[in-house]
């Protein structure tokens, strides 16, 4: 191995170590917030954490970590019930204080149960009713292109969310308008509120549907941070159509008793012993666990 490639490898290792740290912190703060709130959706927050960590940690250009720059990239969490992870990744990035994810769902705070742009401008829009954030992201992509702003727009959708008709209206629309500045990411954890997607309303052949609608579709392991980075780079290099990244994920990823179990999709009240175990498995320090659970 040459010296140059060794240096490059070391740089790459540092990048991945940083992204791993952001992802871990995101998961920890999301779970802590849900525990303190006494409600919230842990499964879909944990499945999305690696995607969020790579997006915010390596892809999105958000000068100053605020929503002030008109030329910033936009990220819309269309699956708004993963708000605990969104607030947590912002805290992990240092964009907001830890108090934001930790105040989740509390009255009088900005940390609404689903992202609200008037309370937390980095939300970019208000979401929670499935399908809408995707359309809003399409509108942002159209609006930015119309004004010759080179920023990119990203939207994260849930898999169950793609049962909404509005998603397919939007899929047709973004392809028709050739919105190559738009990248949608599906957190494909295979579970929704009541059961597996396949038992509620099957989505497969999923990638084929998006391709038939005129999108560039990429399928990846949504916990493989190198694969996520590569997919986002491929999306940015696609100049004639929007890109969909279908990220295969595991619901509840990182907490042994939650992984791939539908009951952790919904809004749950986490017990102290469950929370302690979850935070420990996610690598939280004893100090953090004690502070957050106090």
């Amino acid at each position, binding site marked *: 191995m040459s010296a140059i490639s060794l240096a490059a490898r070391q740089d790459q290792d540092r990048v991945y170590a940083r992204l791993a740290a952001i992802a871990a912190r995101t998961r920890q703060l999301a779970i802590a917030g849900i525990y303190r709130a006494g409600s919230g959706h842990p499964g879909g927050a944990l499945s999305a954490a690696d995607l969020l960590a790579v997006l915010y940690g390596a892809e999105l250009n958000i000068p100053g970590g605020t929503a002030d720059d008109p030329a910033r990239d*936009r990220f819309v969490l269309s699956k708004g019930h993963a708000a605990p992870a969104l607030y947590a990744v912002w805290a992990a990035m240092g964009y907001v204080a830890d108090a934001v994810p930790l105040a989740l769902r509390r009255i009088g705070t900005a940390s609404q149960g689903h992202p609200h742009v008037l309370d937390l401008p980095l939300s970019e829009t208000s979401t929670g*009713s499935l399908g*809408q954030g995707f*359309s809003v992201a399409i*509108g942002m992509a*159209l*609006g930015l292109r119309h004004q010759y702003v080179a920023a990119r727009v990203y939207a994260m959708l849930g898999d169950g969310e793609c049962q909404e008709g*509005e998603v397919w209206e939007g899929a047709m*629309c973004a392809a028709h308008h050739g919105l190559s500045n738009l990248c949608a990411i599906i957190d494909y954890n295979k579970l929704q509120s009541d059961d597996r997607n396949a038992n509620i309303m099957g989505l497969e052949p999923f990638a084929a549907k998006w391709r038939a609608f005129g999108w560039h579709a990429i399928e990846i392991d949504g916990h493989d941070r190198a694969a996520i980075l590569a997919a986002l780079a491929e999306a940015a290099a696609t100049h004639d159509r929007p890109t969909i990244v279908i990220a295969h994920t595991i619901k509840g990823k990182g907490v042994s008793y939650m992984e791939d179990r539908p009951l952790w999709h919904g809004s749950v009240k986490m017990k102290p012993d469950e929370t302690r175990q979850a935070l420990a498995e996610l690598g939280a320090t004893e100090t953090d666990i004690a502070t957050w659970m106090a």
Partner: protein
Amino acid sequence: MSAPSLIAASGDSLREAFGKALATLAETRERLVALDADIAGGTGLHHFRKAHPSRFFQFGIAEQNMMAVAGGMAATGLIPVVTTFAVFCLRAVEQARLSIAYAKRNVKIVASHPGLDVGPDGGSAQALEDLAAFRAIPGMTVLSPADPHEMALATQAAVDFDGPVYMRTGRSPACSVYANGHVFRIGKGHILRDGHDVTLIACGVEVARALEAAKLLAAENISARVVNMATIKPIDADLVARCAEETGAIVTAEDHNTIGGLGGAVAEALVRARPCPVEFVGLEDVFGESGEPDELAEKYRLTAPHIAAAAKRALKRKRHG
């Protein structure tokens, strides 16, 4: 005020007046863009498409996506004007709620083909619930101008207003109520004809009919005030209370269900300030059907004689306290 006159040419419908006004306004408002769902020819937006093709965006027959897209375009600093038929705005109420009103986006929703004025397309196409639905959304301003002249003024007021607006236009040839010189202000009703026995408060196509009703009543020595309440929300509560104080009886008239629209807004304002007898002219919680607009207006009791009859009922209640 001269008697309302029916403008014969279909080119003088409220939708056409809106479309022409918007195209003109866009000449000096760079941020204005317009969104269509395959009915620009019907909404008046074809004028804008012709004048400003690069600012005209097509979404196909997919109103839910279009409505939320408008929220996203507004988030980038544009002023989107979303147009479709009123009944299809109902299809996208929730998108208007979350992605426009809750996010406080500067989007104008302009709905053509409201109420029985739609005519032969029938009950499925006649939106009689839109004022109620959009009025119930926090922060949503709701307008229903009376004639082409006012429509042009209201279009400018809506576009220059900072916040979400829902505005009804109309399909049929419109009656002319205003001469040049009318001043339109969001949130302000306008007394078109003064009177002291009863007040007729109307919006949209019913304003011209209310003026006719006032003439019918005058022939029976009943002095009816006529108010054009082109802003349904925020309702001009001060004017409503003043009319109750000064005339003691009120009739509301709208091409809409009597539940939740103009009648509801006026009644709510009255019970808060100064209750008085109120009669409601509108659809009595039923759907419409196919027919010409004038035939439907007669069958569903929206015409001047029915407004006059309602005024007499209100007067009778006033006198019997």
